[in-house]
């Protein structure tokens, strides 16, 4: 239970944080920190067991038939990531409290961050791979919200979109890879997949599986050539970068590499693809980082480079390399998060991130400078800092390939070059910002930031130092269980210490340090060269072309398919339907009339049917005069409901009658602003052509209906008829289907209805349209807005209509009726008051705000469903009890009736909302000279 709660707490907490954030910034930060601590508290009791090496698996049945269970897993590696997510998350929460200005809405940031935290915890604690992918996608989505936090800035929106596109595409590829993996191993459970390494590697589908999964990992971890989204995501607020782009989101890719390491690694394909990608990324990131003048740009490319380093380590495939990779994940998270925070402090204090302008900050903020220097030294790999340890392990591992491959010496060489640039850009970060003369034209006067803003940096920097100097005492146990979780086996012999003697790796470190200083010394010609190449080596160019290309193709297809003419589109649609239908008739010749019995025939039904046909035909003939067409449509609706009643569908008849009235009112409201007649759109020959086509298609439909209805067929109706009363506790099958058998559909429908109502409300808000000053014949409007007789009569009608509505609602479960019909009747009764007595009169007596009504309806319906869940039954299971009440008699009370009440409220609310606000547009649009009397 703990793991599920740990993952779910941030998601639930997001709502809490959003609510609390209205109280103030401190409250928001405290709530976010509280949620984070709560998530950690669920994890705390499990830590001891994990350190003893147990792997905890929690399983909840979800969709067992699909092989999809809600399954969580906690082993050393997952715990390491969970600790980083929660620990750095806590520091970022504190930091963000001071970072954002009072104008920024802190609640939105913390809410997004909680969502992201939950998604990330889900990724690292998932046992089921499909479930992992769902959380993986959620990290993409929530990071989109976080990167685009400053929505008003173009580059923030662009950066967020790019990050979402790239990682989203990767997620799609990953889904494919995971599905293949599931096909190969027969399970989506990580335990099974991890144990089936040999089977997977020997399978013919291994290569496509590997490529798809790597695409997912590489896009997420910003590996070349997908790295370009990360620098563009630097438009995010710095707390977001410190959290997402150092410790969590970008680490998800390498997390996946490490997680599937036992299954996928050990083949030449793995080694070549992963290590070459890692190597290229390592080098490119390090070189580009030096030439970025933007403080965060430098850090972004440095992050890319370090992610490349980790990828390369996993690509090498040896257990020791994997151990070094895990170690570097820890180290990079600590020093890069603190560097991002330091960059944020500098940005916050100076108002710019351009290193050409920020100089000599040592004199202003020596304390922050010291912290940044420690973190930068760790990044460069200076001895006594944590980065040195993992980097030395990395150098040792690269030397291992020299003897194995023909060009194996290229690997350590490239590693040294990248190391040199890493030292150079770390040096630049310190020297350019804190020394290097005086600041140039800063937007703000900088000074040391608040103590609380520095505290998170202090904690992280202290970790860098502790790990760097006392690795065996601090990080060793955690690293051991994490690496064991990655390798799924015993650890290789290793020693993490500062001093191993004069090993080749130490020399490599020393060359990198000296070389880095030299490169930075000779930076001026290099910067000049970089300025000349500026913009030519942008990896986002192909991306832009690709995006433009996709849009181009989409536009091309749309233009080819869309004729921009409703008449022609409809003509083609009906023509193809006719062709397909005729093909069906011809392919299997059989008599048109089946063997079923025909219903008895009576003259009244014939008369009504002929009336329907006559009205429908006249709508077609008279359709250009819109008001007349509307009247005729009213008659059509009336006759249709008669036919429903005749053929034993009283529910349908009642619904049709109510809908008919609402439709007429709605169309009349719209018609006020529209031309009273439709212009002729078609020429005479075309009308003849369309008429012939319509007759053929209609005749075909009629023939088809005849053929189907005259054949005796086993319908699903019998099942519903027999199960309605025992299963749903209601004798009215239609209503039981709506609220019980298909209750979930109904819930979806009323949600859509509520959303449609709100959408229409939003679109109508403040709308003003030119309103006609006189009617179609040019006569002035009648001055009497609310004739007295009608107003008085309609008032009397209201209680009667409400009585009918309540009656229909209550007995709906047993006899024709239900929430939909009752809702429509109520809405019509209330609309009548608006119609006859006016908006002002009605508003004074009825609640004007309908949103709470809709919300209450949805809430009641959903709670009814959840109620059965709480009692241990599936969602929306209906339960009913039989009562005997003196005087009233026997009756049944079903939980579905509460659900129906929800339906009722939503229908009333949404219908009224739409009609009344459309009516209000009229008042807004009315010329001021002619105020309603």
């Amino acid at each position, binding site marked *: 239970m703990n793991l599920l709660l740990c993952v779910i707490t941030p998601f639930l907490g997001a709502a809490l944080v959003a609510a609390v954030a209205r109280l103030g910034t401190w409250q928001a930060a405290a709530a976010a920190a509280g949620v984070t601590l709560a998530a950690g508290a669920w994890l705390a009791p499990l830590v001891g067991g994990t350190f003893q090496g147990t792997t905890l698996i929690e399983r909840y049945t979800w969709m067992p038939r699909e092989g999809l269970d809600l399954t969580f897993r906690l082993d050393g590696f997952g715990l390491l990531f969970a600790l980083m997510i929660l620990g750095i998350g806590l520091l970022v929460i504190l930091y963000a409290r001071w970072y954002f200005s009072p104008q920024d809405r802190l609640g939105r940031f913390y809410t997004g961050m909680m969502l992201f935290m939950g998604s990330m915890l889900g990724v690292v604690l998932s046992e089921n791979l499909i479930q992992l992918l769902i959380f993986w996608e959620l990290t993409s989505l929530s990071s989109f919200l976080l990167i685009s936090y400053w929505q008003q800035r173009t580059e923030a929106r662009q950066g967020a979109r790019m990050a979402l596109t790239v990682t989203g595409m990767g997620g799609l590829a990953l889904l494919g890879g995971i599905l293949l993996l599931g096909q190969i191993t027969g399970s989506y459970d990580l335990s099974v997949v991890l144990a089936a390494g040999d089977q997977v590697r020997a399978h013919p589908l291994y290569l496509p599986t590997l490529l798809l999964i790597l695409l997912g990992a590489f896009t997420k971890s910003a590996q070349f050539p997908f790295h370009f989204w990360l620098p563009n995501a630097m438009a995010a607020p710095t707390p977001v970068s410190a959290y997402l782009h150092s410790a969590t989101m970008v680490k998800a890719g390498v997390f996946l590499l490490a997680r599937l390491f036992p299954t996928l690694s050990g083949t030449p394909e793995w080694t070549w693809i992963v290590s070459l990608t890692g190597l290229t990324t390592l080098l490119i990131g390090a070189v580009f980082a030096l030439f970025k003048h933007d403080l965060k740009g430098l850090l972004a490319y440095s992050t890319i480079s370090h992610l490349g380093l980790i990828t390369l380590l996993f690509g090498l495939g040896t257990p020791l390399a994997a151990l070094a990779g895990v170690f570097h994940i820890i180290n990079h998270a600590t020093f890069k998060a603190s560097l991002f925070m330091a960059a944020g402090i500098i940005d916050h204090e100076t108002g710019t991130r351009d290193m050409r302008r920020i100089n000599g900050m040592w004199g202003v903020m020596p304390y922050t400078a010291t912290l940044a220097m420690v973190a930068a030294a760790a990044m460069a790999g200076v001895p006594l800092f944590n980065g040195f340890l993992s980097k030395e392990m990395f150098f040792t591992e690269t030397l291992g390939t020299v003897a194995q491959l023909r060009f194996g010496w290229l690997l350590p060489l490239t590693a040294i070059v990248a190391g040199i640039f890493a030292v150079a850009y770390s040096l630049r970060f310190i020297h350019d910002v804190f020394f290097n003369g005086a600041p140039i034209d800063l937007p703000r006067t900088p000074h040391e930031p608040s103590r609380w803003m520095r505290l998170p940096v202090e904690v992280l920097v202290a970790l860098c130092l502790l790990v760097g100097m006392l690795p065996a005492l601090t990080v060793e146990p955690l690293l051991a269980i994490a690496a064991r979780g990655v390798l799924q086996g015993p650890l290789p012999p290793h020693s993490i210490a500062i001093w191993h003697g004069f090993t080749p790796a130490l020399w490599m470190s020393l060359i990198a340090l000296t070389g880095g200083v030299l490169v930075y010394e000779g930076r001026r010609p290099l910067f000049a060269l970089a300025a000349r190449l500026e913009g030519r080596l942008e990896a986002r160019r192909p991306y832009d072309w690709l995006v433009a290309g996709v849009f181009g193709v989409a536009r091309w297809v749309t233009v080819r398919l869309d004729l921009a003419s409703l008449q022609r589109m409809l003509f083609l649609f009906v023509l193809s339907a006719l062709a397909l239908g005729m093909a069906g008739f011809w392919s299997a010749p059989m008599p048109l009339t089946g063997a079923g019995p025909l219903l008895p025939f009576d*003259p*009244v039904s014939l*008369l*009504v049917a002929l*009336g329907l046909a*006559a*009205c429908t035909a*006249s709508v077609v003939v008279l359709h250009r005069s819109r*008001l*007349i067409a509307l*009247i*005729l449509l*009213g*008659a059509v609706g*009336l*006759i249709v*409901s*008669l036919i429903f*009643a005749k053929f034993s569908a*009283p529910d349908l*008849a*009642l619904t049709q*009658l*109510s809908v*008919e*009235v609402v439709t*007429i*009112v709605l169309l*009349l*409201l719209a018609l*006020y602003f529209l031309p009273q007649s439709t212009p002729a759109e078609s020429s005479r020959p075309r009308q003849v052509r369309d008429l012939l086509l319509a007759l053929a298609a209609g005749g075909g439909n009629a023939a088809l209906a005849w053929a189907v209805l005259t054949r005796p067929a086993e319908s699903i109706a019998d099942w519903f008829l027999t199960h309605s009363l025992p299963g749903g506790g209601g004798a009215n099958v239609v209503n039981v289907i709506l609220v019980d058998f298909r209750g979930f559909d109904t819930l979806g429908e009323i949600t859509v209805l509520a959303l449609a109502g709100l959408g229409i409300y939003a679109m109508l808000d403040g709308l003003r349209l030119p*309103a*006609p000053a006189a*009617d179609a014949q040019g006569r002035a*409007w*009648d001055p*009497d*807005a609310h004739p007295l007789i*009608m107003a008085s009569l*309609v008032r009397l009608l209201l209680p*009667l*209509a409400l009585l*009918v509505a309540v009656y*229909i609602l209550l007995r709906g479960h047993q006899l*024709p*009726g239900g929430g939909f019909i009752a809702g429509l*009747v109520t809405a*019509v009764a209330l*609309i*009548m008051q*608006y*119609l006859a007595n*006016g*908006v002002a009169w009605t508003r004074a007596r009825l609640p004007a705000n309908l949103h709470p009504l809709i919300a209450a309806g949805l809430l009641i319906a959903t709670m009814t469903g959840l109620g059965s869940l709480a009692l241990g039954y599936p969602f929306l299971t209906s339960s009913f009890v039989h009562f005997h009440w003196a005087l009233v008699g026997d009756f049944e009370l079903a939980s579905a009736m509460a659900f129906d009440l929800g339906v009722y409220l939503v229908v009333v609310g949404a219908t009224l909302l739409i*009609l009344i606000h459309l*009516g209000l547009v*009229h*008042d807004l649009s*009315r010329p001021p000279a002619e105020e*309603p009397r």
Partner: protein
Amino acid sequence: MLSIAIPIAFALVGTAFTLTLWRLLIGPSVPDRILALDTLAVNAIALLVLFGIAQDSAVYFEAAILIALMGFVGTVALCKYLLRGDIIE
């Protein structure tokens, strides 16, 4: 007795229905058609009630009540539209 009365009543209401429909279709003025629609609703009530009596079932009366309750709303809305253009004001 009913077996004689019901067919006669059906015949009469059917005639009324046909004539109303005729007025609805030919107009000529818009108020003519609105009035025809309103009368059609009355005819529909009659048909439903007759049918209910003939079948000896009360189910059809519900629909008849609903038409009686709401059938005139359409008429009122249409009339208000003719008079004021703006029906909810």
